[in-house]
C-alpha cells in the first residue's frame, strides 16, 4: 500500500462492526461514495461474537420504534444481502419467577399497547408450560414476542460487509483511525497507512468510540465492558425460544444443532486498549446457577467453550445515535449497551437517511449525544 495517499469519499465510517457495515450498505445504496475504516477486521469485536439475539422484547420504550423498524429489515435481510445470516424467527420470552415480577411485566405490556405496539404478549403459567415443557415449576409466567429471533453474528456482519462492497463501499481493514480533523470544510481522517477526506464522518467505533468523540469536543462517557457467554455440548431438543429472566441476568437459547448458548450480562474484564477481554468464572458461576434453576435439565450439560467480547455501554444503557453536538458533518452511532446487534439494520438505515437527507423520519432525539453534555453520568 502506498503511504500517505489521499482517499476521498462522501462519507467515512469509523468501525466495521454491524453498525458501521449496515450504515455503509444503506448509504452506498443511496448513491453515496462510502469508505469504512476498521482497525482490525470486519466483525472482530462485539458484532461478530455476540449472542445473536434479535430481540425487540423488553426494550427501553424509547428504543421500541427503531427496534421495530430494524425488525422489519431483519425479516428481509437474507434477500438484501444474499446470505441467510443464520437468521431464524423464534419467540423471545422473558420469565417471571415471582408474582411481583409478573405484575411488572404485565404493566409493561399494557403500556406498550398504549403506545401502539402489540408485539409483546402476556403468557400465563399454563401457556408458558405448553411452550416450554422443560421450564422449572417455580416460574409463574412471562411475556413473549413471538416473531423475534436469533442469527449468527459473524455470518451476518460479514455478509452485510460483502453486500456493502458490492454496492460500492470500500472497506479498509487493519487500519486504525488515529486522528479526525476538520481541514477547510472537509474531514480529514488519518490512519498509519492513509489519509481520507470527506464531508461526512460517522463514528461507529463501539467501545472505542468515546475517545474519537471526545477528541472532537463531545462528552461521551462510553464504558468498555465484557459480557460473557458460554456454550454447552449438544443436548436433546428442549427449547425453541430465546429465554430471558425478569429478575436475574440470563439469556438462554438452544441452537438448531442442540448446543445451548448461555449468557446474559455477567461481565468479565475488558481491556479495549489491548483489544482484549477476559472471562471471570466466579461471576459466570451465577449464570450457570440461574440456567440450572430455570431449566433443571441443564444440570446435565457440559460447557465446551466460553467467550466474551468488548462492548461499549453508556451510563443510561441506551445508545448514542444522531448528529454531533459540536460539529457539522459529524455523526455518531455507538454505545449499544449489550443489545445493539438487533438494532444494526434499523440504525444503519436511519443514519444513511440522516446523512443523505439531513433529517430522518424516525424518533432519535432521546439518543442525542448532547444528553451527556452537562451530566456525564446520566442514568435512567
Amino acid at each position, binding site marked *: 500500500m502506498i503511504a500517505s495517499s489521499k482517499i476521498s469519499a462522501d462519507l467515512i465510517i469509523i468501525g466495521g462492526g454491524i453498525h458501521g457495515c449496515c450504515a455503509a450498505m444503506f448509504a452506498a445504496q443511496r448513491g453515496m461514495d462510502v469508505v469504512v475504516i476498521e482497525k482490525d477486521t470486519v466483525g472482530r469485536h462485539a458484532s461478530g461474537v455476540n449472542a445473536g439475539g434479535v430481540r425487540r422484547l423488553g426494550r427501553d420504550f424509547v428504543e421500541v420504534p427503531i427496534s421495530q423498524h430494524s425488525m422489519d429489515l431483519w425479516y428481509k435481510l437474507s434477500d438484501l444481502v444474499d446470505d441467510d445470516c443464520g437468521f431464524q424467527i423464534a419467540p423471545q420470552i422473558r420469565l417471571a419467577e415471582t408474582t411481583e415480577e409478573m405484575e411488572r411485566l404485565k404493566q409493561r405490556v399494557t403500556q406498550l399497547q398504549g403506545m401502539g405496539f402489540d408485539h409483546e404478549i402476556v403468557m400465563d403459567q399454563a401457556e408458558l408450560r405448553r411452550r416450554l415443557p422443560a421450564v422449572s415449576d417455580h416460574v409463574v409466567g412471562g411475556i413473549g414476542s413471538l416473531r423475534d429471533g436469533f442469527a449468527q453474528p459473524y455470518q451476518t456482519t460479514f455478509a452485510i460487509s460483502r453486500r456493502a462492497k458490492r454496492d460500492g463501499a470500500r472497506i479498509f481493514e487493519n487500519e486504525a483511525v488515529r486522528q479526525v480533523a476538520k481541514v477547510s470544510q472537509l474531514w480529514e481522517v488519518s490512519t498509519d497507512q492513509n489519509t481520507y477526506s470527506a464531508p461526512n464522518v460517522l463514528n461507529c467505533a463501539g467501545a472505542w468510540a468515546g475517545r474519537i468523540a471526545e477528541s472532537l469536543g463531545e462528552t461521551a462517557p462510553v464504558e468498555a465492558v465484557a459480557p460473557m457467554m458460554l456454550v454447552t455440548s449438544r443436548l436433546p431438543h428442549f427449547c425453541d425460544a430465546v429465554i430471558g429472566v425478569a429478575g436475574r441476568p440470563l439469556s438462554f437459547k438452544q441452537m438448531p444443532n442442540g448446543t445451548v448458548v448461555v449468557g446474559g450480562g455477567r461481565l468479565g474484564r475488558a481491556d479495549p486498549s489491548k483489544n482484549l477481554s*477476559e*472471562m471471570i*468464572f466466579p461471576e459466570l458461576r451465577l449464570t450457570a446457577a440461574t440456567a440450572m434453576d430455570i431449566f433443571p435439565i441443564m*444440570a446435565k450439560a457440559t460447557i465446551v467453550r*466460553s467467550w466474551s467480547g468488548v462492548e461499549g455501554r453508556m451510563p443510561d444503557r441506551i445508545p448514542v445515535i444522531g448528529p454531533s453536538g459540536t460539529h457539522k458533518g459529524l455523526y455518531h452511532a455507538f454505545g449499544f449497551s449489550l443489545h445493539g446487534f438487533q438494532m444494526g439494520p434499523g440504525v444503519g438505515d436511519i443514519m444513511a437517511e440522516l446523512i443523505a437527507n439531513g433529517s430522518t423520519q424516525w424518533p432519535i432525539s432521546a439518543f442525542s449525544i448532547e444528553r451527556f453534555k452537562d451530566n456525564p453520568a446520566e442514568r435512567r
Partner: protein
Amino acid sequence: MIRDYENRPKTCDLAIIGAGPAGMAAAVTAAKAELTVVILDEGEGPGGQIYRDVEQSTPPRQRVLGPDYMAGGNLAAELRASDAIYLARSTVWNISTNRLIDYSCEGTSYQLQAKYILAATGTVERACPIPGWTKPGVTTVGALQILLKSAGIVEENAIIAGSGPLLWLVASQMAAAGSPPIAIVETTPRGRFQAALPHILGAVRGHRYLRKGLSLIRKVRAANVPIYTGATELEVLGEFEATGLRFVSKGRQHSLSARRVALHQGVVPNPQITRLLGCDHRWDKMQHCFRPVTNKRGLTSFENVYVAGDGGGIMGAVSAALQGRLASLDIARKLGKALADRPARLEAGLTKDGAVRPFLEALYAPAPEFISPSDDVKVCRCEEITAGAIRKAVDLGAPGPNQVKSYLRSGMGPCQGRVCGLVVAAIIAERRDVCMDDIGYFRIRPPLKPLHLSELAGFHPLGELGQ
C-alpha cells in the same frame, strides 16, 4: 487425596502443569531449591504421555515397553520423594492473566494462585485428514500406545499408517506383545532421505537415537510385518466404519482390510495453555508447527510463565527433563533461592541431546497430502467442516482462522480446535498464499477441557475462602 478446600494448596511459588518428564524434573529441582511447588496432571499417576502409568507397570508390560519407558519410573519416584505437592486427576481448565489457575479434580473445581507457572503440557498428535479419517475404527498410533501402557491392551487387527519415530516404536511394542500390526503403510515421501542428508552430522552425534530407531525397524521386520513405503493417496475404506485402507505404493494401488486403522504424522506442541494466555508464537518451518517464543530458559512472552518439554517444540523426553530443570533454576534464581544445579551443564546437555533433531525433522516432515487435504475431506470433525468449505470461506474474504471459525464453526466443537487447528491455518495460508505467521491460530477459550455446568455453579473461588 486432598478433597476439602481447607487442605488444598491455595498459593505457591511455582505451579507446574503436566507431570511428564519436563514437569516432574522441574518439580524435583524447584522443590530442592525450596520453592513451594504444586504440580497438576490429569493422569492417575505421574509420567505424562511417554511414561504413562509407569508406577503401575508390571514386569511383562515393562518388557514390552522397553528400558526407555522404565527410566520414567526413577523420575516419578524422585517426584514422590520430593516436597512438591503432586495433584493427580487434576485438569487445569483456565488460567487468568494474574496467574490464577482454575482446575477440576473429581467433579469439583478449585483455584490456585501461582507466582510462576510452568506449562509442561507436552504434545498432541498431528491431525491426519485423509478421506475417511473421521470414521469409527480410525484411531491414532498414540492412542494405540495409550491402550498398551495403561491397560496392557494390544489392538489385534490394525494397520499402522503414516510416518515418524513413534510409528516404529509402537509397531515394535505391538510385535513384542505378540500382536504385530497387520501392515505398516509408510508415507515418508521418496527423496526425503536425500533432503535430510545435510543434517547427517547432527544425526551422527545423536547416533544413540538413530541406532534405537533402526533397531525398532528391524524388530518390526523380524515380526514379518508387511511394510509398504512411499505410500500416497491414502483413503480409509468402509461405508459407516473403517474396514481397511486403500493407498498407492510403488505405482500400485493396494486395498488392505483391517478392523482398525491407526494414523500418525508426528506430534506437535500442545498449544492450549500458551495460546490461552496469548503468548507470542512463531511458525517453525522444520517442525511444521507453531512454537511459543521463549528465551533459553523457557520464559515466554507472558510475565512469569515458562514452557518446558515438547510443549515448546518437539525435542523428546531427555531434553524435556533438562528444560524442566533449567526453567526451575531460573525461577529459583529470580526468587533468590540457592541453586543446586548449573544451568550451563544443562544447556550443554540440551545441545547434545538435540543434535539428531534436524535430521529427523527433515526426514519425517509431514507429506503434502496431510497438510493440504482435498476439498471433500472433513477437516473439523466436531462440526463436520470440509477443506472445501474452508477454502470457500477464504475466497469470500474470511482472512484467518478466527473468522473462518466464526463463519463455519470449525474449531468450535468440544475439542476446541485441538485436532484441526494447524490444518485449518495451513489451508488458509495456502489459499491466500500468505505465510503461517501472518495467518496465526485459533484464539483459545476456556474451559480448556469440557466442564459440567453444575461444577461451574458449585465452584468455590479463592476470594470467598477468606484468602
